[in-house]
C-alpha cells in the first residue's frame, strides 16, 4: 500500500529537490492557504481534520495553533521538533532527508495560520546529515520565494532556521528543547506557562513534531473531510509506525490510525523473527509499558493503547520475542534513562540510579530479598513526584516487565536463571 500522506511520493527519485517536489504538487497547499483561506480558516480546517500531535502526547494541533494565534504577544514562533530521540523512533528522519519540503511547507502554513514570521527546525545533535539537507532545502525555498518576504506576492513573511542541539534525549521534551534552543542546558521548564503562550524567548510558540507538520499540506489541499476519512474517531489520518526488534521486516510503515497490533506485526512487518513466540511489545518507545500477546488486538491509536495500559507515544514499537531475558531488557532500559535523566529533580536523577543498582543486583543474583518490591515502591514515588514527563514515565517499562514477568526476576534474584549466568562464567 502506497504511503497516502506523510511519506507520499517518497519513492520518487530526487523528491528531495524543490523542482521534483513541486512537480508532485508541492507548495500547492501553501498557495491555496495564502490565496483562498484566512489564517483563522486554516486553523479551523486543521481542527476539523482532527489532527493530533505526532510527538507522543497526541494533543490536538488545531487547538494548539488557535491558542498561539489568540495570544496578543508578538513575535510568535513556529518550531519543528526534529529531535527524534525516543529509542526505536525513526519516522521523522525519512521526512527530513527525503521530503524536507513537505515539512517546510507545513511549517509555512502553520506560520500563516498563527501569524509567525520565524520558524526553527530543531534537530538532535546527531542529525548532521538531515540538518545539512534541511539547510539546502531552506535555501532552495528562499531562492524560489517560498520563504522570506512577501511569499507568493502576498503580505506574508516567513523564514526558517535549522538548529542542532547538543544531543540529549531530554531535548525532545518541548520545554527542554526551547531551553537548548535559547543556548541553555537542556532541562525542562516549569509548566504552566505552556509554550503556546510562553515558548521561545517567552513568546507564543507553536511547537510541533516534524510528522505533525508533514500532515498539514494534505489537510489544506485535500480538505479536512478527506483527511479524517482515514483513521479512527479520535485520531484522524495516518501514522508513521516504526517497528523494530524481533520481526522479519523491521521498518517504518505509514498506515491509518486504527490498524491493530496484530495486523501491523503479521501483515506488514512480516511476522515474528524466525517463527519464534512473541513475548511482548513496547508500543511507544523506551518509556512505554510493554503489552503482552493478550493485547495483540489493541487498536493502534492514542486512546486505545492508553486504555490497554501503555502509550502509543511516537509509535516506536519494539517487539520482543521469546526467549529474551526480561531482566536484561529492563536493565538496559533503566540504564538508558539513568544516562539520559537531565539531573534536575531528585526522583528522576536518583531514582533512575537506584533502579539500575537494584536491577543489577537482581540480574547478578546478588540482590536482597524484597528488591523487586523495592523497585515497584520506588517507581510509585518517582512516577508521582518527577518534574517532567521523562521522570514520570521512565520507570514504567521496568514496572511493566516486573508485572508481566515477575517470575523471571525472582529466578534471577535467587540465582536460578540460566540466561544471565553464562557471561559470568
Amino acid at each position, binding site marked *: 500500500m502506497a504511503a497516502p500522506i506523510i511519506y507520499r511520493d517518497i519513492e520518487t527519485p530526487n523528491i528531495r529537490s524543490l523542482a521534483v517536489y513541486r512537480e508532485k504538487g508541492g507548495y500547492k497547499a501553501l498557495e491555496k492557504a495564502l490565496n483562498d483561506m484566512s489564517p483563522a480558516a486554516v486553523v479551523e480546517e486543521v481542527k476539523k481534520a482532527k489532527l493530533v500531535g505526532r510527538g507522543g502526547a497526541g494533543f490536538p494541533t488545531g487547538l494548539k495553533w488557535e491558542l498561539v494565534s489568540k495570544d496578543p504577544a508578538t513575535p510568535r514562533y513556529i518550531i519543528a521538533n526534529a529531535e527524534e530521540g525516543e529509542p526505536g523512533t525513526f519516522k521523522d528522519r525519512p521526512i527530513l532527508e527525503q521530503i524536507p519540503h513537505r515539512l517546510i511547507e507545513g511549517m509555512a502554513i502553520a506560520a500563516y495560520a498563527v501569524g509567525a514570521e520565524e520558524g526553527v527546525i530543531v534537530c538532535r545533535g546527531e542529525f548532521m546529515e538531515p540538518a545539512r539537507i534541511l539547510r539546502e532545502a531552506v535555501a532552495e525555498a528562499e531562492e524560489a520565494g517560498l520563504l522570506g518576504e512577501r511569499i507568493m506576492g502576498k503580505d506574508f513573511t516567513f523564514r526558517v532556521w535549522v538548529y542542532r542541539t547538543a544531543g*540529549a534525549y*531530554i531535548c525532545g521534551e518541548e520545554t527542554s528543547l526551547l531551553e537548548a534552543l535559547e543556548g541553555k*542546558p537542556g*532541562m525542562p521548564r*516549569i509548566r*504552566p506557562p505552556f509554550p503556546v503562550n510562553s515558548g521561545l524567548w517567552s513568546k507564543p510558540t507553536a511547537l510541533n513534531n516534524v510528522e505533525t507538520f508533514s500532515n498539514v499540506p494534505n489537510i489544506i489541499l485535500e480538505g479536512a473531510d478527506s483527511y479524517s476519512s482515514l483513521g479512527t474517531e479520535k485520531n484522524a489520518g495516518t501514522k508513521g509506525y516504526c517497528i523494530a526488534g524481533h520481526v522479519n521486516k523491521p521498518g517504518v510503515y505509514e498506515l491509518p490510525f486504527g490498524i491493530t497490533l496484530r495486523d501491523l506485526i503479521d501483515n506488514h512487518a512480516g511476522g515474528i523473527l524466525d517463527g519464534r513466540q512473541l513475548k511482548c511489545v513496547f508500543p511507544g518507545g523506551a518509556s512505554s509499558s510493554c503489552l503482552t500477546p493478550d493485547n495483540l488486538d489493541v487498536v493502534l491509536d492514542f486512546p486505545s493503547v492508553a486504555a490497554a495500559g501503555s502509550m502509543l507515544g511516537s509509535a516506536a514499537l519494539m517487539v520482543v520475542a521469546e526467549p529474551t531475558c526480561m531482566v536484561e531488557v529492563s536493565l538496559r532500559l533503566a540504564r538508558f534513562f*539513568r*544516562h*539520559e*535523566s*537531565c*539531573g*534536575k*529533580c*531528585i*526522583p528522576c*536523577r*536518583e*531514582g*533512575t*540510579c*537506584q533502579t539500575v*543498582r537494584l536491577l543489577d543486583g537482581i540480574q547478578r543474583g546478588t540482590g536482597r530479598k524484597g528488591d523487586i518490591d*523495592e523497585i515497584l515502591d*520506588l517507581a510509585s*514515588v518517582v512516577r*508521582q*513526584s*518527577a*518534574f517532567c514527563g521523562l521522570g514520570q514515565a521512565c520507570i514504567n517499562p521496568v514496572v511493566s516487565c516486573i508485572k508481566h514477568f515477575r517470575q523471571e526476576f525472582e529466578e534471577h534474584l535467587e540465582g536460578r536463571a540460566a540466561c544471565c549466568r553464562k557471561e559470568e562464567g
Partner: protein
Amino acid sequence: MEVTIDGKKISLEGPVTVLEAARRAGVDIPTLCWHPRVSVLGACRLCMIEVEGINRLLAACTTQVSDGMTVLTDTPQLRKVRQTMLELLLCRHPLDCPTCVKGGECELQELTYRHSAPENRFPENPGPYAVTDPSPFVERDSEKCVLCRRCVRVCREVRGVTVLGAMERGYHKRVGTYFQQPLNSEFQEPYNCEFCGACIDICPVGALNSKVRKFRGRTWEGTTTDSVCPFCSVGCLLSLQVKEGELVRTVPREGPNNEDQACFRGRFGTDYVNATSRIITPLLGRNGSQAPADADEAVRFAAEKIAGARRAEMIVSSGLTGEEIEAAGEFAGAVLPGGTLRAVDTLGLEELAGASRPWEDLEKADLIVVAGQDFTIFEPVAGVRIRVACGKTGAGLIVLDPRDALLGGEAGLWLRPPGEGLSLLLAGLLRTLAASHGDRLKAAGDDSFLASFPGGENGEVEKQLGLPEGSVEDLARRVAASVRVVFVGHRGWYDPEGSVPSLLKELDRLLSGEGTGMPLYLGRDCNSRGAAAAAAAGPPPPEGAPGLVLLAGADPLGTALPGSPLAKRISEAETVIVFDTFLTETARAADVLFPLPTFAEKEGSFTSSSGLSQQLRQAMSPPPGVVSLRKTLEGLASSLGKSLSPGSLPKGSPPGAASPVAPGGKLPSAGERFLVLRGIPIADHRIRLVEESAPLFPGPVVEAHPADLAALGLKSGDSVRVVSGGSELVRQVKADLKTPPGQVHLPCDPADAEMAAFVGESERPEGWPATLRKLAGLERAAGESKDQ
C-alpha cells in the same frame, strides 16, 4: 481568592503560589531548592501537595493558587514522597555531619530530623568528587552538594556573575565552573568570581563553605552581634560572631540597604580586626623610629605640641562613626588653637547634605541611570540592588561606565566615556535635555550652573569622548521618554573635582521637579555622608602651613596620591598627631600615634549613601589600653585644662557653599594612542591584612584591552613604557577585558608608590593621552629590574 490549606481557610490576592499561601496561613511545607531571593526551580520535590480534584501530586512552589482550591500538605502519600526524596539525597551525601562546618544550620540535617524515615533503604554511596578549588575564601565540596542550584541562581540572578553553573546531566550532574577551573580562573574574565560569598549563605548544606572561618568555631559558639559594615558607603548590615576574643565569622543580615547581601570585603575583609599587627599602645617618634610609649607620656607630648601650636587642624576619615567625628569636632573647637575640622573623601557630597534616597526608590523607577567607573567592582551590593530592581520591575537601565563591570552588559544603553569625561557627558545630557526635550522637564534649568561646565555641541562632545555619533541625543531621548528616572552615581577618582554629584542632582531636579533633587550617590567610605554633614571637605585652603595636623582614622598618604594638597600639608606640618588602628602610611609619619578600636570594638553610627543612619554594636572588647577616640581626646583636653564641648567648632567652609567645580577642561583628544584611565583601588590597608585576599589585587601592572595589545604586538607579562606628558612609567602590561579599547588602565594599587606618583604628579596633557611602547632588549632588562 479563597483557598483551604489543611483545613485552614485563607483569602488572598493573586497571583501567589501554594507555597506562599501556605506560609501565610502558617502551614509549613518543607522545601530545599526554593529560596525567596532566587527564581523558582521545582527540583527537590519535597513540597509536593495534594489538590482536591486533581489526581496527581503537584509541587507547591510551582503551582499557582486558584479560587476555591483545597490543598492537603500532610498525607501518608506525601510523607512517603518526602521520606523517599530524603533517602535518595542522603545516600549520595556523605554523613560526616560531626565535622561538617555547616553543622547546626544545615537544612538537610533539619529536614532529615523532621521528615525522614527512621532508616535509609538505599546504601550510602557518595559521589567521587574531591575538595579541590584552590581559589581563596570559598571552599567547594561537591560531594555534599544536593543540586538544589540555589548557588547557581543567586550567582547569576542576584550577583550577575554566573561563575557557577549546573554541569553534566543525570547522576553525573554537579555544580561546577567552566572547564572545572577555580572560581577565579581567567576563563571567567571579565566577570570573575567576586568572592561575595552569596553562594555560601544560600547553600543549604556544607557544599560551599568559607575557607577563612573553617574550624574556627561552631555556628552556635561565642556571641553574635549585629553591626554595620565598615567598608563602602552602601551600608550593609552584618552579624559578627566572636569566640574567645576573635572575630570568627561575619555574615550579612537583612537590611534596608543591602537586603541580605554583602561583598567580599564585608564578609571576609572584616577578618582584619584579628590582625596581630595592630597598634595597642601609643607610639612616639617618626618614620621608622617609632617606639611604644605609655599613655601618660604620649598625652604629655601631644599636649605640649598642641599648647605650643599657632594653628592646628583636625582631619578625620569618613570611615569614623558619626560620634567619633563629633568628638573630633568638639576637640577641634574647644582645644585646638584656631582649630578646624575637615574630612577626607567627602568632596562633592556637601551637595547632598540632609537629603535621603532609599534604595527602594529603584523599584519605583522606570529608568535607572548609573554613572561612574568600575561601578559594581567598588560597590557590588549597589550593583545587586540595581540588577534586582530591573529584574523585578522591568525598568530600563543606562550605564555610563568606561570599564566593563557587569552592569554595562545588562544595560539597554552602555556608554563608555573615558575616565574623567563623565562630567562632560553629564553636562552634555543636561544641555540636550534643556534644548530638545524642554516639555519633559518639570523644573526650570539653571543657566549659570550649566555655564560653569565646559562643553559644546553634542557632536563635539561625542568626538572628544570617543563615543558614537548621536550618543548624547540618544541618551537624552531615552531619559526624556521615562517617567521616573533614578540616577545612581559613586565617588571615584575619575571625578577629581567632585562635580558629578552636583550634575546628577541638577538632572534629578529638572526631571523630577522636586526642590531638592537627590541622586543615589555613593561616597567612598562607610560614613561619607555623615562626615560630609559634620565636617568640611578636604583639601584645606592653601594659605599658610599649619603648625599642627591631627589625623583621626584618615590615611591620606596611603590612599590619596602623593603630591595631593593633603599629602603636602602633612609633609609640611611641624607636628603630626595620628589616631589609628594600624600603622598606615600616614601613621608612619606621625610624631605621636594613639591607638583606636576597630569597628567591631565600638558603638556608634554610620550614615550610608541612602542617607540612613545605622547603629554599630560592640561585638568584642578592644585590647587593654585601647580606648575610644572620645576618651583619648578627653584625656588630651583635660591635660590642657580644657574639656570637649559641642557647638564650638568653626567649620572650614559651611556645607553647601562650595560652588560646582568645572572639570578643568581636561578633554580627551584623539591624537595619541591611549587615554589613561585612572583606576580605583579596590582595597585599603585593612583588606591587605587579610592574607587570602592577595590574589585579588592587580599588583604593579598596567592593563589594556587584549585587542590593543595584539595590535601592538604585546602580550600579558611584557614590559611597557607608558609615557604621558613629561612623565613615564615602566610596568608589566596585563590583558584586561574590562578596560575599553583605546584606553590604558592604571589600577592605582596603593602599594605601588611609583604608579601613584605617575598618576598624581604627572603634568597631564589635555584629555590625558599616553603612548604605550614595548620595551626592547637592554631597556627591558633595565625595566624589569626596576619592577622588582
